[in-house]
C-alpha cells in the first residue's frame, strides 16, 4: 500500500517525553523511532551532537540528497509523454464566459464553490465577503470585515457557513442564514489565530474543522466549535502561501506551498511532513492536489501540481516521488498564481499575471487554449464541485464563470498583441 495515509497513525506514549499523543514514525539513520510532533521539532532544532561539525553535517546532507535522487532515479522507468502517447489528442476546446459577477469594490482575492455547485463565496481587498448564487447572479449575503485584504475564504461542506481570514492574522467562521437581512457579523466566530497573515483556509470533510496556512510559516488544524488548535504543522522555513486538501479515501492528507520554494505533503493526524518537493524557482504561489485511482483495488495515489512565481507549472507524482512534467511556453512570460484541475484531471486551468487563463493538457504537456476576458491579473481559479464550470476571480473586481461550449464548427478569432487567431462562437 503506497498511499501514505493508509499507514494507521500510532497513538501512544512518545519515546522521548512519554506523553500519550499521535506519534510520528521517523527514521534516524535507518532506525525507526516514534516521537510526538513536539519532540520531533525539538530534535530537529537540537545543536550539534557528539562527533558532528557543521561541515560534516553539510557533507552528510549532500550525500543524503544524492542518495535520494538515486533512489528516485531507480524508479523512473518511464516518462509522462511516453505514457501519454497512447492517449488520444484533445480536440479544440471552446470555453465561454457564462456569468460575470460584479459587486466587489476592489480586487477579488479569493473564491470558493459551495457543494451545491451553484453558490460561491468571494472575498476582496475592500474587506467584503460576498456569498453569491452564481446561477441566478443573486448576491445572497455580504459581510464587511474590519480588516481589509481578506486573503482567503472557504465555503463549508454543508453550505451553512463560510470562513474567511487575511491580514488580521485570524480566520473566522460566519454561519449563514436564510434571512438575507440578518447581520452575519453578529454571529461571527473567531477560530484560527496565527502570528502572521492567514494565506489560505479550507474546511475538512465537515463543518467542524478548519485547516489554515499562514505567513508565520505554519499550517494549523482547528476545532471550529471550541477554537482549539488540534494540530500544527511545522516544516516550512518561510511564509506558507497556499494549501489544498487531498480528496483521498482516508482524507488525512493535504499539501502546502510556501516562500521557501517547497511544497510539503502532510499527514493531518500526526502533523508529520510525509513528503516534500523543492523547486529552484521563486515562491510557490499555489498547490493543488488531484486524485487518481487505478481500477486495481490495491493501489491508489495522488498527483500534485504546483507552481511558482515563474511562468511554469510543475506536475508531481506523489507516489513515484518525482516531478513528471513542466507546463511552460516561451510566449508566456508572466508568472501563474492559481491553478485547478478539471474533473478527470486531463485539463489544468492556470491563472496568470498577464490577465489570462491558460488551459493545459496534463498528459501531453501542451497548451490547449487561452482564455481572455479579465482586465487585471487572475487571483484564483476553481472548477465547480461537479466539474460543470470554472470560476475565476480577478483583480479587476469581477468574477467570471465559464463553461465548455458544445457547438461544433468553431473558428477562433481574436486580436491580441499583434498575433491574430480566429475565434467564433454562438452558444
Amino acid at each position, binding site marked *: 500500500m503506497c498511499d501514505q495515509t493508509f499507514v494507521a497513525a500510532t497513538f501512544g506514549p512518545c519515546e522521548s517525553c512519554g506523553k500519550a499523543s499521535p506519534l510520528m514514525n521517523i527514521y534516524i539513520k535507518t532506525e525507526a523511532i516514534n516521537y510526538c510532533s513536539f519532540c520531533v521539532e525539538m530534535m530537529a532544532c537540537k545543536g550539534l551532537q557528539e562527533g558532528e561539525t557543521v561541515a560534516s553535517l553539510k557533507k552528510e546532507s549532500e550525500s543524503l540528497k544524492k542518495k*535520494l535522487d538515486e533512489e528516485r532515479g531507480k*524508479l523512473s522507468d518511464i516518462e509522462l509523454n511516453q505514457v501519454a502517447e497512447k492517449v488520444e489528442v484533445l480536440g479544440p476546446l471552446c470555453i465561454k464566459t457564462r456569468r460575470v459577477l460584479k459587486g466587489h469594490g476592489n480586487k477579488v482575492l479569493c473564491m470558493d464553490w459551495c457543494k451545491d455547485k451553484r453558490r460561491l463565496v468571494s472575498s476582496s481587498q475592500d474587506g467584503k465577503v460576498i456569498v453569491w448564487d452564481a446561477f441566478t447572479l443573486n448576491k445572497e449575503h455580504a459581510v464587511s470585515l474590519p480588516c481589509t485584504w481578506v486573503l482567503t475564504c472557504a465555503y463549508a461542506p454543508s453550505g451553512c457557513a463560510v470562513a474567511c481570514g487575511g491580514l488580521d492574522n485570524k480566520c473566522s467562521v460566519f454561519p449563514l442564514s436564510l434571512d438575507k437581512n440578518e447581520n452575519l457579523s453578529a454571529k461571527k466566530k473567531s477560530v484560527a489565530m496565527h502570528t502572521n497573515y492567514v494565506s489560505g483556509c479550507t474546511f475538512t470533510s*465537515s463543518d467542524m474543522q478548519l485547516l489554515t496556512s499562514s505567513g508565520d510559516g505554519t499550517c494549523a488544524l482547528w476545532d471550529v466549535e471550541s477554537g482549539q488548535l488540534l494540530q500544527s504543522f511545522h516544516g516550512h522555513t518561510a511564509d506558507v502561501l497556499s494549501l489544498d486538501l487531498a480528496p483521498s479515501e482516508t*482524507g488525512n492528507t493535504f499539501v502546502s506551498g510556501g*516562500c521557501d520554494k517547497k511544497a510539503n505533503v502532510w499527514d493531518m493526524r500526526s502533523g508529520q511532513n510525509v513528503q516534500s518537493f523543492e523547486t529552484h524557482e521563486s515562491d510557490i504561489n499555489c498547490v493543488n492536489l488531484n486524485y*487518481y485511482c487505478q*481500477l486495481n483495488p490495491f493501489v491508489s495515489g495522488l498527483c500534485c501540481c504546483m507552481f511558482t512565481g515563474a511562468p511554469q507549472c510543475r506536475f508531481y507524482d506523489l507516489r513515484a516521488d518525482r516531478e513528471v512534467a513542466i507546463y511552460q511556453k516561451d510566449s508566456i512570460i508572466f508568472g501563474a498564481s492559481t491553478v485547478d484541475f478539471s474533473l478527470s484531471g486531463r485539463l489544468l486551468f492556470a491563472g496568470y499575471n498577464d490577465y489570462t487563463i491558460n488551459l493545459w493538457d496534463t498528459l501531453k504537456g501542451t497548451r490547449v487554449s487561452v482564455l481572455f476576458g479579465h482586465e487585471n491579473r487572475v487571483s484564483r481559479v476553481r472548477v465547480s464541485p461537479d466539474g460543470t464550470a470554472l470560476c475565476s476571480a480577478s483583480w479587476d473586481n469581477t468574477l467570471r464563470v465559464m463553461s465548455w461550449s458544445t457547438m461544433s464548427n468553431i473558428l477562433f478569432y481574436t486580436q491580441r498583441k499583434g498575433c491574430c487567431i480566429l475565434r467564433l462562437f454562438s452558444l
Partner: protein
Amino acid sequence: CELIYVGDCGSAGRPSMRGSPFQFRLEAIVVEMQDSKSGVKCSEQKLNISTIPHVITGVDVLTWITNKMKTTPEEVQAFGTMLVAYGYIYPLQNHKKLVMCNNTSLYRFQTPYFWPTQNWVAEDSDYGTVCQMGWWVTIRTGVGTLFGSGTHYSHLHDWMNHKWDFIVMQATEQYKAGKERKKPDRVVFDCQERAYWIVNRPPVSNMFYQQAIMRSKVKSSVSLGALAKYVTTYKNHDPFLAPCLPSNPWQTDNDTYWTCNTRRVDVPTKMRVERWSFSLFELLSDLRGRDDFKTFLKKEFSGENLAFWEAAEELKWGTGSSMTSKAETIFKTFLAPGAPRWINIDGRTMGLTVKGLEHPHRYVLEAAQTHVFLLMKKDTFFRYLKSPVYKDIQKKAINPDPHNFSPAQLEQNAQSRSLGIHPIILWQQEEEEKAKAAAASAPVDVKAMMSKIDRNK
C-alpha cells in the same frame, strides 16, 4: 525620517546583512529606542519564576516606531519584524518565531556584543563554547569537574583540538561569570545567546532527507500508468470534455442536470450509476450510491462494517466536545463483546482499539476503520457490482435526452432561472432524515416493551 528597507520583506528567511550601508543607520535607531527618556518604555517582567529587567512589549515597540517614522501600520510592522529577524531585538517567549507581534509579547534589546555589525562570523569555536557551556549546565557539574571526562567532552576535544585552549579559557570565564550572575541575569543571558544562535546558525537537520529515502516509492510506469487510466476512465464524466445530459446548466440556463442528480432522487442517471463502479471511494462519496450499497448490505446481513465506518468518520470529523460520548456509543454498538452490531476484525486491531478507547481521541478508530474499509474495498465492493441490487439499478437508471433549445427558448430560460433549494434547507432535511434513521435502527429495549405490554393488558 524615511524607512530603511534592509531586505526582502515577506520572507522569514534571514538575508545576510554584513557590510550593508544601512546597518549603521539601523543601529542608530536601535540605540535611540533604548534611550531611558525618549525610547521604548521598558519594565521588569516576570517570566516563569524569574523577574527579568528591561523588558519591552511588542505593542510598545511598534507604537514608538509609528511615532518616530510616521508611516503606515504595515510599514511599521515590517520594520519591527526586521529588527527581530536581524537580531537587534529578541523575543523572550517564542524563540523560534522571529517576528514582532503587535501585542503584549515580551522582547528585549540584544546586547551590542551580539549585533550583526560586530562583523564576526559566527565561528565554530563560539558554537563549541556554547555547546560546552550547554553540556556543563545540563549535567550540572560543579567547578571541580570543570575538566571532567565523558565521551562528549573528548569528542569535542578532538574536534576542536587546535582551538582547545582558547575554548576552555572562554568556557571557564563564562562558567564563572554564569555562576556569579544572579538567576534573572542568567535567564536573560541564556535567552540572548539562544536568540543569537537562532538568527545566525539555522538548525542543520538531515532527518527529513532520511525520511524521504526510507519512504516507500512506486515505479513511474505504475503510477503514471494509473494516472493515464484514471484520466481516460473519467473522460466521459468531465463536463469540459464530454457533454452533460441533458445539458450543462451554465450553457442553457436549465437546471435539469442538477435536479435529476440530487441526493435523494429515486432513479439515478446512467452516468451516475456507472461512476459508482469506478471505485469504492466514488460509491461512498455519492450519498445516493451509498444508499444503494446499504440496500445490498442489508440483504447480505453485513451492514455493520459500513455502519462502523460511518460512525468512525463522524468521530474523526466531529467536534472535540462530542468525542467521548461518540466513542462510548461506538464501543457499545460495535466493539464490546456481544455488541449488537459487532464487527469482525482481527484480534490485534481489536485489542489496540479497545485499549485506545480508554483515552479516546480523534484518531482512536483509525486502525479498525482502515481494516474495515480495506475489507469492503477488496471484497464487498466487487460482490456488490455483481449483485442483483446493482444490476437492477443499472437497468432502472435513466439516460436523459439531450436538450435542443431554440434561441428563443434559450432567451426564456435565461429570464426564468430556477432558484433551486437552498443548501441550508437541504441540510436541515438531511438532519431530520438522519435522526429518523437512527431512531429506526436503535436496538429495541425489550424490558420497556414487555412492561408496556403488561400495562396494556
